[in-house]
Protein backbone atom coordinates (compact mmCIF):
# COMPACT_ATOMS: atom_id res chain seq x y z
CA UNK A 1 0.00 0.00 0.00
CA UNK A 2 1.44 3.38 -0.98
CA UNK A 3 1.13 6.46 1.22
CA UNK A 4 -2.19 8.22 0.71
CA UNK A 5 -1.80 11.20 -1.62
CA UNK A 6 -4.24 13.98 -2.36
CA UNK A 7 -5.39 14.51 -5.92
CA UNK A 8 -8.01 16.98 -7.11
CA UNK A 9 -11.01 15.59 -9.02
CA UNK A 10 -10.01 12.10 -7.93
CA UNK A 11 -11.73 9.07 -6.44
CA UNK A 12 -10.77 9.67 -2.82
CA UNK A 13 -12.86 8.98 0.25
CA UNK A 14 -12.21 10.47 3.68
CA UNK A 15 -13.41 10.48 7.26
CA UNK A 16 -13.86 13.25 9.81
CA UNK A 17 -11.44 13.39 12.72
CA UNK A 18 -13.33 13.29 16.01
CA UNK A 19 -11.43 12.94 19.27
CA UNK A 20 -13.70 10.07 20.35
CA UNK A 21 -12.52 7.83 17.52
CA UNK A 22 -9.05 9.26 16.87
CA UNK A 23 -7.15 6.29 18.29
CA UNK A 24 -9.32 3.80 16.42
CA UNK A 25 -8.73 5.69 13.19
CA UNK A 26 -4.97 5.66 13.78
CA UNK A 27 -5.16 1.92 14.21
CA UNK A 28 -7.13 1.51 10.98
CA UNK A 29 -5.81 -0.89 8.33
CA UNK A 30 -3.90 0.82 5.53
CA UNK A 31 -6.22 2.04 2.83
CA UNK A 32 -9.32 2.20 5.06
CA UNK A 33 -9.65 5.87 4.08
CA UNK A 34 -7.64 8.27 1.91
CA UNK A 35 -7.74 11.54 3.85
CA UNK A 36 -8.94 13.08 7.05
CA UNK A 37 -11.08 16.17 7.57
CA UNK A 38 -11.07 18.24 10.74
CA UNK A 39 -12.51 21.44 12.15
CA UNK A 40 -9.62 23.87 12.65
CA UNK A 41 -11.49 25.46 15.58
CA UNK A 42 -11.07 22.18 17.47
CA UNK A 43 -7.33 21.82 16.86
CA UNK A 44 -5.71 25.24 16.52
CA UNK A 45 -3.58 26.12 19.54
CA UNK A 46 -3.95 22.66 21.02
CA UNK A 47 -0.88 20.96 22.48
CA UNK A 48 -0.11 17.92 24.62
CA UNK A 49 -1.67 14.57 23.83
CA UNK A 50 -4.05 15.92 21.22
CA UNK A 51 -1.18 17.59 19.38
CA UNK A 52 0.53 14.19 19.21
CA UNK A 53 -2.66 12.70 17.78
CA UNK A 54 -2.89 15.45 15.19
CA UNK A 55 0.77 15.02 14.22
CA UNK A 56 0.25 11.29 13.76
CA UNK A 57 -2.59 11.98 11.31
CA UNK A 58 -0.81 14.76 9.52
CA UNK A 59 2.23 12.50 8.95
CA UNK A 60 0.08 9.75 7.49
CA UNK A 61 -2.87 11.35 5.74
CA UNK A 62 -3.71 14.41 3.66
CA UNK A 63 -5.83 16.81 5.75
CA UNK A 64 -8.78 18.91 4.63
CA UNK A 65 -10.25 21.66 6.82
CA UNK A 66 -13.92 22.18 7.48
CA UNK A 67 -14.36 25.34 9.51
CA UNK A 68 -17.18 26.10 11.90
CA UNK A 69 -16.68 29.58 13.35
CA UNK A 70 -15.86 31.86 10.43
CA UNK A 71 -19.38 33.33 10.52
CA UNK A 72 -19.06 34.25 6.86
CA UNK A 73 -22.74 35.13 6.60
CA UNK A 74 -22.93 37.06 9.86
CA UNK A 75 -22.79 40.78 10.56
CA UNK A 76 -19.85 40.82 12.95
CA UNK A 77 -16.58 41.95 11.34
CA UNK A 78 -14.56 39.08 9.89
CA UNK A 79 -12.34 37.54 12.53
CA UNK A 80 -9.01 38.24 10.87
CA UNK A 81 -7.11 36.75 13.77
CA UNK A 82 -8.93 33.46 13.30
CA UNK A 83 -8.15 33.62 9.59
CA UNK A 84 -4.47 34.20 10.29
CA UNK A 85 -4.44 31.19 12.59
CA UNK A 86 -6.19 29.07 9.99
CA UNK A 87 -3.72 30.19 7.33
CA UNK A 88 -0.88 29.18 9.68
CA UNK A 89 -2.52 25.84 10.37
CA UNK A 90 -2.91 25.20 6.62
CA UNK A 91 0.80 25.85 6.10
CA UNK A 92 1.86 23.78 9.08
CA UNK A 93 -0.16 20.70 8.16
CA UNK A 94 -0.16 21.16 4.37
CA UNK A 95 -3.95 21.14 4.36
CA UNK A 96 -5.46 20.49 0.97
CA UNK A 97 -8.47 22.77 1.20
CA UNK A 98 -10.38 24.99 3.59
CA UNK A 99 -14.15 24.81 3.50
CA UNK A 100 -16.75 26.69 5.49
CA UNK A 101 -20.53 26.81 5.75
CA UNK A 102 -22.71 29.19 3.79
CA UNK A 103 -24.23 30.20 7.06
CA UNK A 104 -23.71 32.37 10.12
CA UNK A 105 -22.96 31.20 13.63
CA UNK A 106 -23.00 34.36 15.72
CA UNK A 107 -24.81 37.59 16.44
CA UNK A 108 -22.69 39.74 18.76
CA UNK A 109 -21.29 36.50 20.20
CA UNK A 110 -20.80 32.94 19.00
CA UNK A 111 -23.69 30.49 19.18
CA UNK A 112 -21.51 27.64 17.86
CA UNK A 113 -24.23 26.46 15.50
CA UNK A 114 -25.20 27.05 11.89
CA UNK A 115 -28.01 29.52 11.36
CA UNK A 116 -29.73 30.07 8.01
CA UNK A 117 -28.74 33.24 6.16
CA UNK A 118 -31.90 34.97 4.97
CA UNK A 119 -32.03 34.58 1.17
CA UNK A 120 -32.04 38.34 0.60
CA UNK A 121 -30.74 40.16 -2.44
CA UNK A 122 -28.75 42.59 -0.32
CA UNK A 123 -26.97 39.67 1.37
CA UNK A 124 -25.45 38.41 -1.89
CA UNK A 125 -23.02 41.24 -2.62
CA UNK A 126 -22.16 41.59 1.04
CA UNK A 127 -21.33 37.91 1.36
CA UNK A 128 -19.43 37.72 -1.92
CA UNK A 129 -17.21 40.56 -0.79
CA UNK A 130 -16.56 38.86 2.56
CA UNK A 131 -15.64 35.63 0.78
CA UNK A 132 -13.17 37.56 -1.34
CA UNK A 133 -11.58 39.05 1.74
CA UNK A 134 -11.26 35.56 3.22
CA UNK A 135 -9.65 34.29 0.03
CA UNK A 136 -7.17 37.17 0.13
CA UNK A 137 -6.35 36.42 3.75
CA UNK A 138 -5.72 32.72 3.28
CA UNK A 139 -4.26 32.99 -0.20
CA UNK A 140 -6.51 30.33 -1.69
CA UNK A 141 -10.05 29.73 -2.86
CA UNK A 142 -12.64 29.23 -0.15
CA UNK A 143 -14.85 26.18 -0.58
CA UNK A 144 -18.38 26.97 0.62
CA UNK A 145 -20.82 24.30 1.69
CA UNK A 146 -24.55 24.30 1.03
CA UNK A 147 -25.99 23.85 4.53
CA UNK A 148 -29.06 22.09 5.73
CA UNK A 149 -31.68 24.51 7.01
CA UNK A 150 -35.00 24.21 8.71
CA UNK A 151 -36.30 27.71 8.22
CA UNK A 152 -35.87 30.34 5.54
CA UNK A 153 -36.62 33.69 7.18
CA UNK A 154 -38.34 36.14 4.79
CA UNK A 155 -36.79 34.87 1.53
CA UNK A 156 -36.50 37.14 -1.50
CA UNK A 157 -34.95 34.52 -3.74
CA UNK A 158 -34.59 30.74 -3.85
CA UNK A 159 -31.81 28.86 -2.11
CA UNK A 160 -30.46 27.79 -5.49
CA UNK A 161 -30.33 31.35 -6.85
CA UNK A 162 -28.72 32.51 -3.63
CA UNK A 163 -25.96 29.88 -3.73
CA UNK A 164 -25.26 30.28 -7.44
CA UNK A 165 -25.02 34.07 -7.25
CA UNK A 166 -22.64 33.99 -4.32
CA UNK A 167 -20.38 31.38 -5.93
CA UNK A 168 -20.29 33.42 -9.10
CA UNK A 169 -19.73 36.82 -7.55
CA UNK A 170 -17.22 35.63 -4.97
CA UNK A 171 -15.53 33.35 -7.48
CA UNK A 172 -15.25 30.62 -4.88
CA UNK A 173 -15.81 26.88 -4.94
CA UNK A 174 -18.58 24.59 -3.73
CA UNK A 175 -18.55 21.84 -1.18
CA UNK A 176 -21.58 19.91 -2.31
CA UNK A 177 -23.17 18.23 0.70
CA UNK A 178 -25.39 15.57 -0.78
CA UNK A 179 -27.12 14.76 2.49
CA UNK A 180 -27.91 18.43 3.03
CA UNK A 181 -29.53 18.59 -0.38
CA UNK A 182 -31.58 15.51 0.45
CA UNK A 183 -32.62 16.85 3.88
CA UNK A 184 -33.48 20.25 2.41
CA UNK A 185 -35.41 18.73 -0.46
CA UNK A 186 -37.71 17.08 2.08
CA UNK A 187 -37.87 19.95 4.55
CA UNK A 188 -38.33 22.61 1.90
CA UNK A 189 -40.24 20.40 -0.56
CA UNK A 190 -38.17 20.56 -3.73
CA UNK A 191 -36.69 18.09 -6.20
CA UNK A 192 -33.06 17.35 -5.18
CA UNK A 193 -31.97 16.37 -8.68
CA UNK A 194 -33.41 19.49 -10.25
CA UNK A 195 -31.63 21.45 -7.54
CA UNK A 196 -28.29 19.82 -8.35
CA UNK A 197 -28.77 20.38 -12.07
CA UNK A 198 -28.93 24.11 -11.34
CA UNK A 199 -25.52 24.22 -9.66
CA UNK A 200 -22.34 25.27 -11.52
CA UNK A 201 -20.50 22.01 -12.23
CA UNK A 202 -17.10 23.65 -12.65
CA UNK A 203 -17.19 24.96 -9.07
CA UNK A 204 -17.80 21.61 -7.36
CA UNK A 205 -14.51 20.85 -5.63
CA UNK A 206 -15.42 18.46 -2.83
CA UNK A 207 -18.41 16.55 -1.47
CA UNK A 208 -19.91 15.46 1.84
CA UNK A 209 -22.21 12.58 2.54
CA UNK A 210 -23.79 11.78 5.90
CA UNK A 211 -26.63 10.19 7.79
CA UNK A 212 -29.39 12.21 9.38
CA UNK A 213 -32.20 12.00 11.90
CA UNK A 214 -35.83 11.55 10.88
CA UNK A 215 -37.73 13.89 13.20
CA UNK A 216 -40.87 13.47 11.11
CA UNK A 217 -41.64 12.33 7.56
CA UNK A 218 -41.47 15.95 6.44
CA UNK A 219 -38.77 17.11 8.86
CA UNK A 220 -35.25 15.68 8.72
CA UNK A 221 -32.43 16.93 10.93
CA UNK A 222 -28.84 16.87 9.71
CA UNK A 223 -27.21 15.32 12.78
CA UNK A 224 -24.39 13.17 11.31
CA UNK A 225 -25.29 10.51 13.85
CA UNK A 226 -26.61 7.67 11.70
CA UNK A 227 -25.79 5.53 8.69
CA UNK A 228 -26.23 7.05 5.22
CA UNK A 229 -29.67 6.36 3.72
CA UNK A 230 -30.01 4.53 0.41
CA UNK A 231 -31.77 7.56 -1.08
CA UNK A 232 -28.72 9.66 -0.22
CA UNK A 233 -26.35 7.13 -1.78
CA UNK A 234 -28.43 7.33 -4.94
CA UNK A 235 -28.12 11.10 -4.87
CA UNK A 236 -24.33 10.82 -4.52
CA UNK A 237 -24.21 8.68 -7.66
CA UNK A 238 -26.32 11.29 -9.43
CA UNK A 239 -23.95 14.03 -8.22
CA UNK A 240 -20.93 12.18 -9.68
CA UNK A 241 -22.81 11.76 -12.94
CA UNK A 242 -23.51 15.48 -13.07
CA UNK A 243 -20.28 16.93 -11.74
CA UNK A 244 -17.69 14.18 -12.12
CA UNK A 245 -15.88 12.45 -9.28
CA UNK A 246 -14.30 14.59 -6.57
CA UNK A 247 -12.84 13.73 -3.13
CA UNK A 248 -15.74 12.93 -0.84
CA UNK A 249 -16.01 12.83 2.92
CA UNK A 250 -18.22 10.69 5.13
CA UNK A 251 -19.42 12.83 8.04
CA UNK A 252 -20.04 11.02 11.29
CA UNK A 253 -20.01 13.09 14.48
CA UNK A 254 -21.47 10.87 17.20
CA UNK A 255 -23.27 7.60 17.91
CA UNK A 256 -20.30 5.80 16.37
CA UNK A 257 -20.78 2.27 15.03
CA UNK A 258 -17.97 -0.32 15.01
CA UNK A 259 -15.16 1.02 12.82
CA UNK A 260 -15.68 -1.74 10.26
CA UNK A 261 -19.11 -0.28 9.55
CA UNK A 262 -17.69 3.22 9.01
CA UNK A 263 -14.98 1.85 6.74
CA UNK A 264 -17.62 -0.03 4.76
CA UNK A 265 -19.41 3.27 4.16
CA UNK A 266 -16.10 4.82 3.06
CA UNK A 267 -15.63 1.90 0.69
CA UNK A 268 -19.13 2.45 -0.67
CA UNK A 269 -18.12 6.03 -1.53
CA UNK A 270 -15.17 4.63 -3.49
CA UNK A 271 -17.29 2.03 -5.22
CA UNK A 272 -19.70 4.75 -6.29
CA UNK A 273 -16.79 6.86 -7.49
CA UNK A 274 -15.32 4.01 -9.51
CA UNK A 275 -18.63 3.28 -11.20
CA UNK A 276 -18.61 6.84 -12.45
CA UNK A 277 -14.94 6.94 -13.36
CA UNK A 278 -15.08 3.88 -15.56
CA UNK A 279 -18.25 5.14 -17.19
CA UNK A 280 -18.51 7.41 -20.21
CA UNK A 281 -17.84 10.50 -18.14
CA UNK A 282 -14.32 9.47 -17.21
CA UNK A 283 -11.92 12.38 -17.30
CA UNK A 284 -8.44 12.02 -18.69
Amino acid at each position, binding site marked *: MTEPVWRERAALAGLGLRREIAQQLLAAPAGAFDFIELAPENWIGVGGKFANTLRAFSERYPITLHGLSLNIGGFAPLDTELLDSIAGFIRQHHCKLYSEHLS*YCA*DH*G*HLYDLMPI*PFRRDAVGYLAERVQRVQDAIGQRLVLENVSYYAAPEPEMSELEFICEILERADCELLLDVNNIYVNSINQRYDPIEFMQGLPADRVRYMHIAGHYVEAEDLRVDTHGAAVLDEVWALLAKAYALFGVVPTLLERDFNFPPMAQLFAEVQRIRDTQHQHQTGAGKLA
Partner: protein
Amino acid sequence: MNDSVTSLDKGSPEDTGIGAAIDDRAPPGLVAAQRRFAAHLRDPRNVPAPASIEPRRMRVYTGLVYANIESFLSSGFPVLRKLHTEEEWVACVRTFIAKHCSHTPYFTNIGAEFVEFLGSGFAAGGASRPYLLELAQYEWAELALFLSDESLPASLGPAPEAQAMLAMLPRLSPLAWPMVFHYAVHEIGPGNEPCAPEAAPVCLVVYRDAQDEVKFLRTDLFSARLLELIEGQPLCTAQLVEQLAGEAYQMTKSQLQSGVCGVLANLYEQDIIRFADCE
Protein backbone atom coordinates in the same frame (compact mmCIF):
# COMPACT_ATOMS: atom_id res chain seq x y z
CA MET B 1 -7.76 42.09 15.51
CA ASN B 2 -10.76 44.34 15.84
CA ASP B 3 -9.11 47.01 17.92
CA SER B 4 -12.25 49.06 17.53
CA VAL B 5 -14.44 46.40 19.10
CA THR B 6 -16.06 47.56 22.29
CA SER B 7 -16.55 44.38 24.22
CA LEU B 8 -19.95 43.77 25.75
CA ASP B 9 -18.34 41.81 28.52
CA LYS B 10 -15.48 43.06 30.60
CA GLY B 11 -12.39 40.91 30.81
CA SER B 12 -12.97 38.47 27.97
CA PRO B 13 -10.84 35.34 28.52
CA GLU B 14 -8.84 36.17 25.44
CA ASP B 15 -8.88 39.47 23.76
CA THR B 16 -9.78 37.92 20.44
CA GLY B 17 -12.74 36.93 18.37
CA ILE B 18 -15.94 38.76 17.69
CA GLY B 19 -17.76 41.28 19.81
CA ALA B 20 -20.27 44.08 19.60
CA ALA B 21 -18.93 45.68 16.44
CA ILE B 22 -20.69 45.33 13.09
CA ASP B 23 -19.14 44.90 9.67
CA ASP B 24 -19.73 48.36 8.23
CA ARG B 25 -20.77 46.82 4.93
CA ALA B 26 -23.53 44.67 6.46
CA PRO B 27 -26.95 45.61 5.03
CA PRO B 28 -29.15 46.91 7.88
CA GLY B 29 -32.08 44.70 6.85
CA LEU B 30 -29.90 41.61 7.01
CA VAL B 31 -28.51 42.61 10.40
CA ALA B 32 -32.01 43.14 11.78
CA ALA B 33 -33.25 39.78 10.44
CA GLN B 34 -30.27 37.93 11.91
CA ARG B 35 -30.60 39.67 15.25
CA ARG B 36 -34.27 38.68 15.47
CA PHE B 37 -33.50 35.07 14.63
CA ALA B 38 -30.52 34.75 16.97
CA ALA B 39 -32.26 36.56 19.83
CA HIS B 40 -34.94 33.90 19.85
CA LEU B 41 -32.37 31.09 19.73
CA ARG B 42 -30.60 32.60 22.71
CA ASP B 43 -33.72 32.95 24.81
CA PRO B 44 -36.63 31.04 23.27
CA ARG B 45 -38.74 31.36 26.43
CA ASN B 46 -38.71 35.13 26.49
CA VAL B 47 -38.01 36.35 22.96
CA PRO B 48 -40.65 35.57 20.34
CA ALA B 49 -39.60 33.69 17.19
CA PRO B 50 -39.76 35.45 13.82
CA ALA B 51 -43.44 35.29 12.93
CA SER B 52 -43.03 33.67 9.52
CA ILE B 53 -41.41 30.48 10.78
CA GLU B 54 -43.23 27.31 11.77
CA PRO B 55 -42.62 26.73 15.53
CA ARG B 56 -41.69 23.08 14.97
CA ARG B 57 -38.84 24.15 12.67
CA MET B 58 -37.68 26.89 14.96
CA ARG B 59 -37.51 24.32 17.74
CA VAL B 60 -35.00 22.32 15.69
CA TYR B 61 -32.65 25.29 15.93
CA THR B 62 -33.23 26.03 19.61
CA GLY B 63 -32.74 22.33 20.34
CA LEU B 64 -29.49 22.11 18.37
CA VAL B 65 -28.00 25.24 19.93
CA TYR B 66 -28.83 24.10 23.45
CA ALA B 67 -27.67 20.51 22.99
CA ASN B 68 -24.36 21.53 21.44
CA ILE B 69 -23.39 24.06 24.09
CA GLU B 70 -24.68 21.85 26.90
CA SER B 71 -22.48 18.99 25.75
CA PHE B 72 -19.37 21.19 25.77
CA LEU B 73 -20.15 22.40 29.28
CA SER B 74 -21.08 19.07 30.83
CA SER B 75 -17.99 17.39 29.42
CA GLY B 76 -15.72 20.29 30.41
CA PHE B 77 -17.11 20.64 33.94
CA PRO B 78 -18.11 17.14 35.03
CA VAL B 79 -18.01 17.76 38.80
CA LEU B 80 -19.81 21.08 38.53
CA ARG B 81 -22.47 19.33 36.46
CA LYS B 82 -22.96 16.70 39.17
CA LEU B 83 -23.47 19.36 41.82
CA HIS B 84 -26.47 20.70 39.92
CA THR B 85 -29.85 19.04 39.70
CA GLU B 86 -31.09 18.54 36.15
CA GLU B 87 -33.38 21.53 36.56
CA GLU B 88 -30.62 23.79 37.93
CA TRP B 89 -28.23 22.74 35.20
CA VAL B 90 -30.70 23.38 32.40
CA ALA B 91 -31.41 26.81 33.88
CA CYS B 92 -27.68 27.55 34.14
CA VAL B 93 -26.94 26.55 30.53
CA ARG B 94 -29.97 28.47 29.27
CA THR B 95 -28.86 31.60 31.09
CA PHE B 96 -25.34 31.21 29.70
CA ILE B 97 -26.70 31.03 26.15
CA ALA B 98 -29.10 33.93 26.74
CA LYS B 99 -26.80 36.33 28.55
CA HIS B 100 -23.22 35.60 27.67
CA CYS B 101 -21.45 37.02 24.64
CA SER B 102 -18.86 34.37 23.68
CA HIS B 103 -15.94 35.92 21.85
CA THR B 104 -13.85 32.88 21.17
CA PRO B 105 -14.18 31.06 17.85
CA TYR B 106 -12.47 28.03 19.40
CA PHE B 107 -14.58 25.22 20.82
CA THR B 108 -11.70 24.39 23.12
CA ASN B 109 -12.14 27.78 24.80
CA ILE B 110 -15.85 27.70 25.53
CA GLY B 111 -14.95 26.66 29.09
CA ALA B 112 -13.18 29.98 29.63
CA GLU B 113 -16.29 31.80 28.44
CA PHE B 114 -18.38 29.78 30.88
CA VAL B 115 -16.10 30.58 33.83
CA GLU B 116 -16.30 34.24 32.92
CA PHE B 117 -20.08 33.96 32.81
CA LEU B 118 -20.21 32.24 36.21
CA GLY B 119 -18.18 35.08 37.67
CA SER B 120 -20.38 37.74 36.10
CA GLY B 121 -23.29 37.47 38.49
CA PHE B 122 -25.76 36.29 35.85
CA ALA B 123 -25.45 32.73 37.09
CA ALA B 124 -28.04 31.65 39.64
CA GLY B 125 -26.79 29.84 42.74
CA GLY B 126 -23.58 31.86 42.83
CA ALA B 127 -24.64 33.61 46.01
CA SER B 128 -25.81 30.54 47.94
CA ARG B 129 -22.96 28.29 46.78
CA PRO B 130 -19.92 30.51 46.23
CA TYR B 131 -17.63 27.48 45.90
CA LEU B 132 -19.19 26.61 42.53
CA LEU B 133 -17.29 29.42 40.83
CA GLU B 134 -14.02 28.26 42.37
CA LEU B 135 -14.77 24.68 41.36
CA ALA B 136 -15.42 25.84 37.79
CA GLN B 137 -12.11 27.75 37.77
CA TYR B 138 -10.34 24.61 38.95
CA GLU B 139 -12.02 22.32 36.40
CA TRP B 140 -11.26 24.81 33.64
CA ALA B 141 -7.60 24.95 34.72
CA GLU B 142 -7.38 21.17 34.36
CA LEU B 143 -8.91 21.22 30.88
CA ALA B 144 -7.02 24.30 29.71
CA LEU B 145 -3.72 22.76 30.79
CA PHE B 146 -4.55 19.48 29.12
CA LEU B 147 -5.19 21.36 25.88
CA SER B 148 -2.47 23.98 26.16
CA ASP B 149 0.10 24.27 23.39
CA GLU B 150 2.74 25.61 25.74
CA SER B 151 5.65 23.29 26.30
CA LEU B 152 7.64 22.37 29.33
CA PRO B 153 11.38 23.06 28.95
CA ALA B 154 13.26 19.77 29.07
CA SER B 155 14.46 18.53 32.42
CA LEU B 156 18.23 18.63 32.90
CA GLY B 157 18.33 15.58 35.13
CA PRO B 158 18.17 15.49 38.94
CA ALA B 159 17.57 18.72 40.87
CA PRO B 160 20.79 20.73 41.39
CA GLU B 161 22.55 20.60 44.75
CA ALA B 162 21.70 23.47 47.11
CA GLN B 163 24.95 25.40 46.48
CA ALA B 164 24.51 25.28 42.71
CA MET B 165 20.79 25.99 43.02
CA LEU B 166 21.42 29.26 44.91
CA ALA B 167 23.08 30.69 41.82
CA MET B 168 20.35 29.53 39.45
CA LEU B 169 17.17 31.14 38.27
CA PRO B 170 13.99 29.15 39.01
CA ARG B 171 11.30 29.68 36.36
CA LEU B 172 7.69 28.60 36.57
CA SER B 173 6.66 26.12 33.88
CA PRO B 174 4.21 27.69 31.43
CA LEU B 175 2.17 24.56 32.14
CA ALA B 176 1.85 25.28 35.88
CA TRP B 177 -0.89 27.47 37.30
CA PRO B 178 -0.54 28.34 40.99
CA MET B 179 -4.06 29.06 42.27
CA VAL B 180 -5.42 30.10 45.66
CA PHE B 181 -8.97 29.20 46.70
CA HIS B 182 -11.24 29.71 49.69
CA TYR B 183 -12.47 26.13 49.33
CA ALA B 184 -10.74 22.78 48.91
CA VAL B 185 -11.98 22.61 45.32
CA HIS B 186 -9.96 19.49 44.56
CA GLU B 187 -12.00 17.54 47.13
CA ILE B 188 -15.45 18.86 46.26
CA GLY B 189 -17.87 16.40 44.73
CA PRO B 190 -21.34 15.00 45.17
CA GLY B 191 -21.72 14.29 48.89
CA ASN B 192 -18.79 16.53 49.72
CA GLU B 193 -19.99 20.09 49.43
CA PRO B 194 -18.42 22.57 51.84
CA CYS B 195 -20.58 24.45 54.37
CA ALA B 196 -18.07 27.24 54.86
CA PRO B 197 -14.75 28.43 53.46
CA GLU B 198 -11.62 26.73 54.78
CA ALA B 199 -9.92 28.39 57.76
CA ALA B 200 -6.76 29.01 55.69
CA PRO B 201 -6.33 29.67 51.97
CA VAL B 202 -6.17 26.51 49.86
CA CYS B 203 -3.04 26.78 47.70
CA LEU B 204 -2.95 24.48 44.70
CA VAL B 205 -0.71 24.21 41.68
CA VAL B 206 -2.47 22.69 38.69
CA TYR B 207 0.13 21.57 36.18
CA ARG B 208 0.92 19.30 33.26
CA ASP B 209 3.98 17.12 33.66
CA ALA B 210 6.50 15.90 31.11
CA GLN B 211 4.25 12.91 30.30
CA ASP B 212 1.43 15.38 29.47
CA GLU B 213 -0.58 14.24 32.50
CA VAL B 214 -2.51 16.99 34.29
CA LYS B 215 -2.01 16.88 38.07
CA PHE B 216 -2.34 19.09 41.08
CA LEU B 217 -0.15 19.73 44.10
CA ARG B 218 -1.47 21.22 47.32
CA THR B 219 1.16 23.42 48.90
CA ASP B 220 1.61 25.33 52.15
CA LEU B 221 1.58 29.11 52.29
CA PHE B 222 5.37 29.29 52.28
CA SER B 223 5.62 27.40 48.97
CA ALA B 224 2.78 29.44 47.55
CA ARG B 225 4.60 32.67 48.41
CA LEU B 226 7.74 31.29 46.81
CA LEU B 227 5.82 30.43 43.64
CA GLU B 228 4.33 33.89 43.61
CA LEU B 229 7.82 35.40 43.71
CA ILE B 230 9.02 33.05 40.97
CA GLU B 231 6.09 34.08 38.80
CA GLY B 232 7.09 37.71 39.23
CA GLN B 233 10.36 39.26 38.15
CA PRO B 234 13.28 36.88 37.66
CA LEU B 235 15.23 36.32 40.88
CA CYS B 236 17.90 33.70 41.40
CA THR B 237 17.42 31.35 44.32
CA ALA B 238 19.80 33.32 46.58
CA GLN B 239 17.82 36.49 45.89
CA LEU B 240 14.60 34.66 46.68
CA VAL B 241 16.05 33.69 50.04
CA GLU B 242 16.99 37.34 50.65
CA GLN B 243 13.52 38.46 49.73
CA LEU B 244 11.86 35.95 52.06
CA ALA B 245 14.26 36.83 54.87
CA GLY B 246 12.76 40.30 54.84
CA GLU B 247 9.30 38.81 55.32
CA ALA B 248 7.98 37.56 58.61
CA TYR B 249 9.05 33.91 58.66
CA GLN B 250 10.29 32.63 62.01
CA MET B 251 13.41 31.07 60.57
CA THR B 252 17.12 31.67 60.63
CA LYS B 253 18.81 32.47 57.32
CA SER B 254 20.22 28.96 57.01
CA GLN B 255 16.87 27.36 57.84
CA LEU B 256 15.29 29.59 55.25
CA GLN B 257 17.91 28.69 52.67
CA SER B 258 17.48 24.95 53.12
CA GLY B 259 13.69 25.43 53.22
CA VAL B 260 13.70 27.26 49.89
CA CYS B 261 16.07 24.78 48.25
CA GLY B 262 14.00 21.83 49.50
CA VAL B 263 10.76 23.28 48.13
CA LEU B 264 12.35 24.19 44.81
CA ALA B 265 13.89 20.72 44.40
CA ASN B 266 10.47 19.20 44.96
CA LEU B 267 8.75 21.58 42.52
CA TYR B 268 11.45 20.84 39.96
CA GLU B 269 11.00 17.10 40.28
CA GLN B 270 7.26 17.45 39.73
CA ASP B 271 7.80 19.50 36.54
CA ILE B 272 6.35 22.68 38.08
CA ILE B 273 9.55 24.70 37.77
CA ARG B 274 12.75 24.60 35.76
CA PHE B 275 16.14 26.20 36.45
CA ALA B 276 17.99 28.56 34.16
CA ASP B 277 21.42 30.13 34.55
CA CYS B 278 21.49 33.62 36.06
CA GLU B 279 22.48 36.40 33.69
